[in-house]
């Protein structure tokens, strides 16, 4: 599904990703883990075309992605960003509509219904301004908006960030459920323990490089994990 080959990129002269290889196969949940500042968000920006590569390539669905967010969305690589980035001045319904601005427009009505079924709370808030939702509801909206583009692969960047422990639990259940419907998910998280519980495979990133990869079970059992995660 997604094949990332030795990508390098950064900001200005500073290289943040220093040759990253990773892949996501269809049907998988792949966790990309690491502490703050190791390059996870930069990786996501590169994948969704917001940041151009200095070298390496991103193959998605059998084709090389031309580095623009439009190309990524058109191909079905949908990125639900860290901090949600919903449209605060627009209603829940309008946020969802715009999720299908570039892709999935034909299925808009059907997909909105599907999102409301997945997130009954959003249905009660259809006309409410998105900026007035609670943190958990905003995260649901961000994921729902991503679903509107009929993703072939969903990248979730820190979906559990800033949520209460109960909501975090709910969020990971949801990720599992979406994956159960056949959607491959790349889960980018700081929450190592819970991510590994639901992921099939995982990559640990440290200083812009993959320092460890393997099945979730392998990674969980690895004594190096703590060292890598804490970056000590």
């Amino acid at each position: 599904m997604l094949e990332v080959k030795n990508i390098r990129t950064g900001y200005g002269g500073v290289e943040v990703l220093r040759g990253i290889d990773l892949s996501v196969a269809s049907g998988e949940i792949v966790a990309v883990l690491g502490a703050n500042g190791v390059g996870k968000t930069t990786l996501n920006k590169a994948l969704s075309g917001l940041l151009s590569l200095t070298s390496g390539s991103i193959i998605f669905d059998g084709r090389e992605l031309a580095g623009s967010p439009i190309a990524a969305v058109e191909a079905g690589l949908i990125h639900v960003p860290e901090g949600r980035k919903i449209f605060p001045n627009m209603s829940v319904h309008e946020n969802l509509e715009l999720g299908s601005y570039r892709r999935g427009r034909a299925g808009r009505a059907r997909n909105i219904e599907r999102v409301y079924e997945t997130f009954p709370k959003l249905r009660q808030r259809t006309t409410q301004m998105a900026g007035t939702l609670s943190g958990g509801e905003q995260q649901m909206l961000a994921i729902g908006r991503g679903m509107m583009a009929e993703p072939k692969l969903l990248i979730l960047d820190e979906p559990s960030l800033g949520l209460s422990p109960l909501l975090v639990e709910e969020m990971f259940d949801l990720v599992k459920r979406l994956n159960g419907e056949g959607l491959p998910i790349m889960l980018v998280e700081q929450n190592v323990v819970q991510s590994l519980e639901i992921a099939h495979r995982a990559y640990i990133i440290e200083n812009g490089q993959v320092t460890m990869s393997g099945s979730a079970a392998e990674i969980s059992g690895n004594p190096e994990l703590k060292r890598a995660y804490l970056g000590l």
Partner: protein
Amino acid sequence: MYSPTILIEAMINGLLTGAIYALIALGLTLVYGVLHIINFAHGAILASAMFAVWGLNVLAGIDPYLSILVVTPIFFGLGYGVQRLVIGPAAKGDDGNILLITLGISIFIENALLAGFGSDTRSISSDFSFSVIEAGPFLISSPRLVGFAGSLVVTALLWFIMSRTDAGKAIRAVAKEKLGASLMGIDVGHVYALTFGLGCAALAVAAGLLMPTFYVNPRVGGAFVNIAFTIVVLGGMGSIPGAMIGGLLIGLVESLSGLLLGESLGQIGIFVIFILVLLLKPTGLFGAKA
């Protein structure tokens, strides 16, 4: 004290003029809401649209109202192009640069108009310019009534675009959340250009509605933009209903203070309001908190 007939007539006239002010403010507030800058070229673009309407009338004998159908798409295209090809690339993502570039564009346009047409004041006069409608005891200028109706139609149209179409929703999305919008595959550069184009199109309509009763010279835009800016601040920066209500209010104030204080002091009322709004409610009537 004035008779109620005169007062009411002044109020009607004020509202009619205010609607055109609102139309000019609409473009300004739209561009501000999305690009977060004051478009300093707004007045110069209005002046060139008015010259276009005047030119079509003088050269081709086209009625100013009819010329709206020609000038509006042209100005939409020009606005789109200028944003996409000049302002966008030159700004390099810095809002402060956009400010300077629009200032440069306004100097360029004004001087090009001066070079082309000289500083003479020109107007289109026809019988319709002076025709009035009698409504009971009141005399209402027909071209102003047309201007009022035209402004309302354009505002309604713009409101419809912004709230009901994907393009309008994309504009509102980009206004508040650029990153989120580009992750939905919204082309931010295109949305900026679209917004700038719509702002210029609103000016083109305003030009066509103004020309039957107003004059044009290369510097005519300045007077309108001062008022439009007050309206934008009064209505709330970036708000479309705010621009409409603000425009009507300002028209009313200008007309009444003109009547009570004398024509030359008429604009004092506008700037008193401007200062009061800044002091008491800086976000304006419909403005969101920053």
